[in-house]
């Protein structure tokens, strides 16, 4: 009973947050709606007893990705987005149709065919277990991930810094 | 090589010494409590604050660090408006750097103290929230009508008109001036008396001179008349 109420509330928060994030003209409002979505999802993870993932979700998505998005928006144009320009892309109607089609055609039948276990098994959530798993069978993955993050860091810095154009190229021929 | 973070520790020692010291050594305190609560246990150098609510101070010829010094209007002994010194000449209004003085001249003249009838200020406002206590108005006043006051409790809860002092707020007797700035007031009175005496003497001299001149003129005229008569003869 408790779980059901929590599920419906959290999924409503998540879906509404996502919809507002996608449709809002004001980008800052959009990012904050996105964070509401992330928070709702973190709640759902908690409900599924994946508490470390929920913490990571808040830490990474709200604490880091959200802030990064805010900085990117502040660094680019049109923060409030109230300049009357068109918000949607050219083929937005067909995009909408395609998205709904993906939902209906690709996702619904497989879900219905999937054998559904009625009850989840009782588990004892343990962060320690997760950490040991990371160290024993998945240590290579972890290292590769560390490498990936370093590469992403360097790549992001160089990409955002931009290439310094030599002065000669600016002069007209 | 100095200890890393040693500067921070040294600073913390200083503040700790001040913290503890302020409880034991009353002379450390740079501020003092309202006098009527602290009673006789005031720190020594904090004695320039009135001991009782509304009490005025002994000599504050030098500016006290606790008082606020804004101009006031002087009147001589007697009814305030009958003996006001100001004649609404508006010199101070023009000279005031922050332009915090506002004067409206009266329409009819008024005689006071046996002098020649003069105008008087129908309105004389000083916005002490603007005034910067520069004393230029005091310097320029030819009538010794405006001098500096020393006040302690100017604070008000009215943020719109509370700090705009009207003519009647500003009017203070010469006796009050003597009480708060005895030496300065005495010097000013002496100077005024001297000036007055000098003026009288000058007037007398001028009258004498005028009389003499008139006599001479009469004499000259008489002589001229005599000459004329001689010429015609």
């Amino acid at each position: 009973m408790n779980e059901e109420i929590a599920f419906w509330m959290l999924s409503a928060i998540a879906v509404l947050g996502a919809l507002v994030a996608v449709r809002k003209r004001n980008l800052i409002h959009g990012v904050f709606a996105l964070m509401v979505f992330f928070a709702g999802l973190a709640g759902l993870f908690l409900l599924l007893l994946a508490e470390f993932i929920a913490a990571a979700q808040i830490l990474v998505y709200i604490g880091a990705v959200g802030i990064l998005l805010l900085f990117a928006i502040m660094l680019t144009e049109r923060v409030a987005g109230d300049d009357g320009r068109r918000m949607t892309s050219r083929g937005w109607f067909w995009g909408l149709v395609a998205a709904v089609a993906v939902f209906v055609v690709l996702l619904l039948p497989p879900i219905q065919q999937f054998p559904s276990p009625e009850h989840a098994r009782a588990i004892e959530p343990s962060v320690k277990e997760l950490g040991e798993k990371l160290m024993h069978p998945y240590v290579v993955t972890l290292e590769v991930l560390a490498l990936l993050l370093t590469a992403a860091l360097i790549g992001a810095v160089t990409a955002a810094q931009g290439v310094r154009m030599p002065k000669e190229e600016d002069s007209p021929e | 090589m100095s200890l890393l973070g040693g500067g921070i520790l040294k600073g913390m020692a200083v503040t700790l010494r001040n913290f503890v010291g302020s409880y034991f050594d009353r002379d450390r305190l740079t501020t003092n409590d309202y006098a009527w609560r602290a009673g006789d246990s005031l720190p020594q150098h904090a004695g320039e604050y009135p001991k009782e609510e509304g009490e005025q101070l002994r000599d504050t010829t030098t500016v006290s660090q606790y008082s606020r010094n804004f101009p006031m209007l002087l009147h001589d002994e007697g009814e305030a408006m009958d003996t006001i010194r100001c004649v609404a000449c508006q010199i101070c209004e023009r000279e005031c750097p922050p332009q915090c003085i506002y004067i409206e001249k009266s329409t009819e003249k008024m005689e006071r103290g046996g002098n020649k009838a003069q105008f008087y200020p129908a309105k004389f406002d000083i916005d002490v929230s603007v005034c910067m206590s520069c004393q230029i108005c005091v310097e320029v006043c030819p009538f010794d009508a405006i001098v500096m006051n020393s006040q302690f409790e100017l604070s008000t809860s009215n943020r719109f008109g509370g700090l705009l002092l009207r003519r009647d707020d500003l009017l203070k007797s010469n006796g009050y001036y003597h009480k708060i700035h005895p030496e300065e007031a005495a010097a000013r009175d002496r100077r005024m008396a001297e000036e007055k005496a000098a003026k009288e003497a000058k007037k007398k001299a001028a009258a004498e001179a005028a009389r003499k001149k008139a006599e001479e003129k009469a004499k000259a005229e008489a002589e001229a008349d005599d000459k004329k008569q001689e010429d015609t003869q």
Partner: protein
Amino acid sequence: MSPDLVRDILIATVPLMVIFPTLFAFTTWLERKALARIQNRIGPNKVGVPLTRYGGRFSLFGLGQPLADGIKMLFKENIVPRDADRLFHLLAPILALIPAMLVLCFLPIEFPWTESLLPVQAFLLDGAVIFFFAITGLNTLAIFMAGWASRNKYSLLGGMRAIAQMVSYEIPLVLSAVVVVMMVGSLNAAEIANAQAGWNWFVFTPWGLAAFVIFFIASLAETNRSPFDLPEAESEIIAGYFTEYSGFKFALFFLGEYIAMFAISGLAVTLFLGGGAGPGIATLPWLSAMWFIAKIFALIAVMIWLRGTLPRLRVDQLMGFAWKFLLPLSILNILVAGFAHFIPQENIVSKVAVWVVSLGILYMAAKGLNQLNRPNVRPRDYKYAE
């Protein structure tokens, strides 16, 4: 929801929401008083017990001041700038308060009435410490929201400064907590506190001492306390992100800031100062909560003391300090902790040796970093003066 669960949740959370705001009121008074004494002033001493004579003998060192401040805040005009984003302007102070209040649940304070409510104690969550850091990070968003919604350049500057500062200092903060987590082998706050029962506090180990110092410095920056109070530097940007806030909204920001201070000090107490451990708790279990709060107040007192002592940092110094000094040191500290853990410490000689060697390594590293970061500035040549 079953009524039992609701009751348990209320018993577990409502005391936190009563006790800490009360302590907040007391702390504002304490801070004003202590700062005043540091500057050789007297501090608030007028407002006393309500309804007694004004300035009378029941002034109790001005303990009524917080109450008077609160009433004043409540009755002040709520001003919203014309161009402000009204919704965000309203939400920001609330969002600033919620995470701060929320993380209080992760502190292992063992109030006597909570013993029967084990299932709803958030600090028994397996990842309590990581949750603490995750939720503390939400504070940045509230600050950005306030700065952006005010439509004021100073507010936005303050908000941006706050984000940059809090994101940077979160890293040394977490890395210094990692040492303790590594040693205990658990992210559970209660387990970390239990591991320090008796006098085995982690601050009494070389790596723990270093981690505690780093953690404390980073927590000062994280809660925007002096000398890291650049986001609200009044001499530079008025009041930073809450320039445009007045009345009760401002009070909420103020409350949120102080609650965050309590929370992060509480975490420092949990990680390094033994949680609720202290003399006398074996006979009187309720003393444990008292000890916990007393330790929090000891840390707060040091924060106030530092605020009265140190001048504010410059922005470049602030960032350089986080990235070029605290971050390498906290990483080195993890290594030192690992070595100290594996060297056997049976007798006093080896213990002393471990202390000397590990602190020596850390001190030399700090000294070296300090030398490296020292700006290359010669004494200035004055052309005209002298």
